[in-house]
């Protein structure tokens, strides 16, 4: 079954009198439970594609399907619901709400979803344990290191078992050791929970963790490698 | 433009909306202050003028004790010659002698207690506006004629009209019984109930004869050009009083202590209101400037690390505040003047206010008076408070060291 399917996606930005094709007829299908790295040099269109898949932005033309449902024509409110229930996000930085503690940040999405408190608590404690941050439960983001913050963000993205986790350069602000640890965490969670992961990066080292590697250049897919065979 | 000034000006417009909102608070406050102060001064001026114009005048010569007790025998002897002396000394016709007593006034059908004034018909119009308020009939003419002019409510209550006869019953200065029969020749309407209901005027000659005054009266009223002239007039009048006489020259403030006190009471409550408004605006400025300092902590840290003294930065904050304050003053005073001047021509009528206004001899429509004081006092005070409010944010910079400042994200 396919977790994500893109058909002929196009997105053009105007800059001055110049048209920039951020997405240029992108066709893509990602199967459920896959672990995909999206790699491109800066300005290659990674963020644009992830935003389109995640329902944060709408493409100019083409179709986007998430878990079999077409989403590029959904209303804003339906998109918000989609993001809330089916997709987990990890951004490059400023992932956490500063006034909430680690656990509250993790519970945030569930709380908006309307999950009862006891269930929330149980799940958030379990996931904190899983990402190895059980001791930071009551700490606010300002008092955590970058790596710890990203782990909390990952925990939040995964805790309500979304079908799809989108991470846009999650390791960009981390040193290579911490980045490696975070990727290990992603891989472990992918195997354990069977969620589909799409991680955008331009870091060669990170790409080695992927089962499938998609390379983009100037808004087009230029290479699609199944790394499992290797 | 000086570089620091330009820097301050640009900094102000980094957050245009915030700057506008803060300036807006000042402008709002300034418009209100200009309007309210102009209104106040307009009202006070009118209140004084109207109250004094009716009877009191600017100065009065009276016997000692008369002001408080108003007894019939507390007289100014030989009042007409003295009035003439004062007229000659001041070279002014706005000097008039009066007698004043209480009588029972009876018409054919009704009797009421009335305050009756004996006046000099040819001079009274220069010191009081009652002669000019005669709507029906005419004012008194002859110094000795058996004529009377009464208020309109009194006329209604007594059921008399022009040409009707009235009887006045009272007591003479010597304690004797006094009575006079007079013809109603005029009816005046001042709009002030207490005056229209209680006051009557007869010629002074008739008054002196009826009430056995033996040439005396109770008050000589003097009106000057304006209120500032009063102290000088007072001295000059004093100087022509007969040697050894106990007579007093009282100014309007002494004669109508209530007037000044109404103004004082009103002023203190107004100043309380102004103060609250200004304090609220100061809070707004304090908040804005503090935020502007806090959000630039990093930036300030860097320039301090480069060696700039915190005092200079504090000065920059004060300068920014001063610029913003100046905008508030200029825009506020301008808008305030515009807003108020509309009312200076059109007047302001507050519905339901008429009764209250009448109590203070004010017309139903009030006209603010704009002058330099009312225009600049309010905005000036707002400016001072604005600068005071910026002191804390400016001082905060001093307590900061560069390393700490830079650490703040």
């Amino acid at each position: 079954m396919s977790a994500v399917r893109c058909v002929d996606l196009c997105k053009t930005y105007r800059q001055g009198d110049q048209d920039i094709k951020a997405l240029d007829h992108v066709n893509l299908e990602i199967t459920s439970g896959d672990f995909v790295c999206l790699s491109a040099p800066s300005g290659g269109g990674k963020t644009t594609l992830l935003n389109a898949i995640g329902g944060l932005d709408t493409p100019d033309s083409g179709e986007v399907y998430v878990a079999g449902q077409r989403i590029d024509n959904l209303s804003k409110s339906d998109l918000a619901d989609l993001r809330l229930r089916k997709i987990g996000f990890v951004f490059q930085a400023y992932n956490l709400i500063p006034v909430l503690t680690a656990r509250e940040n993790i519970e945030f999405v569930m709380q908006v979803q309307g999950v009862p408190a006891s269930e929330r608590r149980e799940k958030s404690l379990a996931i904190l344990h899983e990402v190895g941050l059980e001791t930071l439960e009551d700490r606010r983001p300002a008092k955590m290191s970058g790596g710890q913050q990203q782990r909390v963000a990952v925990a939040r993205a995964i805790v309500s078992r979304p079908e799809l986790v989108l991470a846009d350069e999650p390791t960009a602000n981390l040193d290579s050791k911490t980045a490696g640890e975070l990727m290990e965490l992603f891989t472990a969670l992918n195997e354990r929970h069977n969620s589909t992961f799409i991680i955008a990066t331009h870091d060669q080292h990170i790409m080695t963790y992927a089962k499938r590697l998609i390379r983009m250049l100037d808004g087009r897919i230029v290479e699609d490698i199944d790394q499992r065979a290797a | 433009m000086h570089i620091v000034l330009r820097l301050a000006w640009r900094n102000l417009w980094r957050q245009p909306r915030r700057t506008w909102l803060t300036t807006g608070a000042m402008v709002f406050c300034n418009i209100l202050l200009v309007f309210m102060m102009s209104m106040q001064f307009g009202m006070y001026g009118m209140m004084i003028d109207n109250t004094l114009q009716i009877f009191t005048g600017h100065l009065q010569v009276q016997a000692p004790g008369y002001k408080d007790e108003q007894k019939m025998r507390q007289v100014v002897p030989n009042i007409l010659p003295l009035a003439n002396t004062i007229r000659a000394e001041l070279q002014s016709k706005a000097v008039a002698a009066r007698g004043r007593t209480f009588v029972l006034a009876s018409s054919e059908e009704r009797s009421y207690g009335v305050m009756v004034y004996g006046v000099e018909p040819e001079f009274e119009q220069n010191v009081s506006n009652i002669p000019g308020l005669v709507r029906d009939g005419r004012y008194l003419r002859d110094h000795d004629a058996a004529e009377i002019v009464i208020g309109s409510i009194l006329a209604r209550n007594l059921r008399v009209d022009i040409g009707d006869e009235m009887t006045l019953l009272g007591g003479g200065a010597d304690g004797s019984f006094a009575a006079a029969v007079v013809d109603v020749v005029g009816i005046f309407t001042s709009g002030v109930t207490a005056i229209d209901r209680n006051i009557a005027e007869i010629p002074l000659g008739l008054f002196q004869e009826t009430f056995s005054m033996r040439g005396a009266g109770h008050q000589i009223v003097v009106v000057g050009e304006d209120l500032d002239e009063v102290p000088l007039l007072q001295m000059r009048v004093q100087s022509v009083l007969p040697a050894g006489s106990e007579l007093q020259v009282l100014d309007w403030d002494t004669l109508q202590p209530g007037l000044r006190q109404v103004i004082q009471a009103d002023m203190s409550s107004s100043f309380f209101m102004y103060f609250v408004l200004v304090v609220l605006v100061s809070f707004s400025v304090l908040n804005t400037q503090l935020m502007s300092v806090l959000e630039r902590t990093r930036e300030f840290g860097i320039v301090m690390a480069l060696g700039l003294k915190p005092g200079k930065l504090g000065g920059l904050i004060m300068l920014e505040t001063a610029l913003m304050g100046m905008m508030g003053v200029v825009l506020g005073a301008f808008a305030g003047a515009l807003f108020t001047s509309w009312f200076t021509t059109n007047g302001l009528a507050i519905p339901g206010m008429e009764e209250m206004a009448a109590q203070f001899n004010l017309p139903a429509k009030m006209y603010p008076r704009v002058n330099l004081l009312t225009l600049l006092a309010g905005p000036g005070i707002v400016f001072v408070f604005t600068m005071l409010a910026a002191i804390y944010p400016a001082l905060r910079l001093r307590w900061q060291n560069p390393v700490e400042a830079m650490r703040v994200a």
Partner: protein
Amino acid sequence: MRLFGVLFRLAWRNLWRNHRRTTIMLCAIAVGVWAMIFMTALTRGMVDQMIIEGIRTLPGHVQIHNPKFLDDPSISNPVSISAQQSFDDPEIVAWSSRVKVPAVISSERESRGITLLGIDPVAERHISFIKYDEVDGRFLVDSDDKGIVIGAKLANILETEIGKRVVIMSQDPDNDIADRGFRVVGLYTASTGAVEEAYAFVGRATVQKMLRIGNQTTEVVFVGDDYRDVEALYEVILDAVDDSVSVQRWYETNTYLGSMLNVMDGFVVVWIIVIFLALSFGLVNTLMMAVFERVREIGLMLALGMKPGSILGQILIESMLLLLIGLVAGNMLAWATVMSLQGGIDVSVVAEGLEMFGAASVLYPKLNVDDMILASKVVLVLGFLASLSPAWRASRYKPVEALAKVG
């Protein structure tokens, strides 16, 4: 509801994130609310006193007259209700019928015009502004009392004193002068000298005899529970009498007092709104800054699937919390101030000025729960409206763009 919990928590924590800004804003709101309520309490206190005093010296709460008396306040227009008729209704706390005529009072030395009140001292006890046992000498004992009680200031002007005789002249229904000597038996003091000069009290039966009017009186006054609520009393009396008399409420009898009440009501509302407007600039500014510095988080929350409505709600809750805390502080401050001034504020330096208003020289601020509620309502409702713009702006951010903001 659960969502509200999240929003509330976020709003509360965000409120204290920049505690300096919040504290300053709270101070401003508290001072503003304090000023609203304190100033109102002062005005209310003054007007209340004026009206109560005014009602006591004059009209009672409701009065009955001969319809012609209003235009022609003469003894020729008496009230046809005899003094013996009884009014009995729970609304009526006290009532009395009076002979009220203009008169001239003369001592051997001076004459003055006064309002002569022929009263039944027993019925009048709970209506009159005079405290009988504080009268110098004695107050009238009954309707047949042959004495007269005058104000201390009038006695001074007339150069008379207790035990001396004065002559009262007035007019009988045939317009003949009726006069009679009275012995001064008591001197009263009132809050203003003008009152002391204006009113003299004699026994009702005595004055009826002097004026040859039999049992007739000129007015009947009624006092109910509260001057603010005279309508019920008015209805009762309207039912009890026929068309031959006119029934008036106090604010119709004394239009100055009536208009005073309205003007003050208007003033209170205007004052509250002006203060709020002065506050609103700071409020909007604070909220706007709060939104501006949180654009990224707002983007994040939107990306995570929170609806724009919730963002709007969150900012509004934050604003309401700010206002509520400020309101509580301001109300308590005002309450404390008024409590500490229970002894009254001595303003006798401007006593003669206040006398022109009809106000006394000690001011008692009067805290009115209704005014506190009014001020709070105005602050909350207008505050809500003022917050809408920044909150709306916050909810309109596009998640992608908001996230891209460098913060």
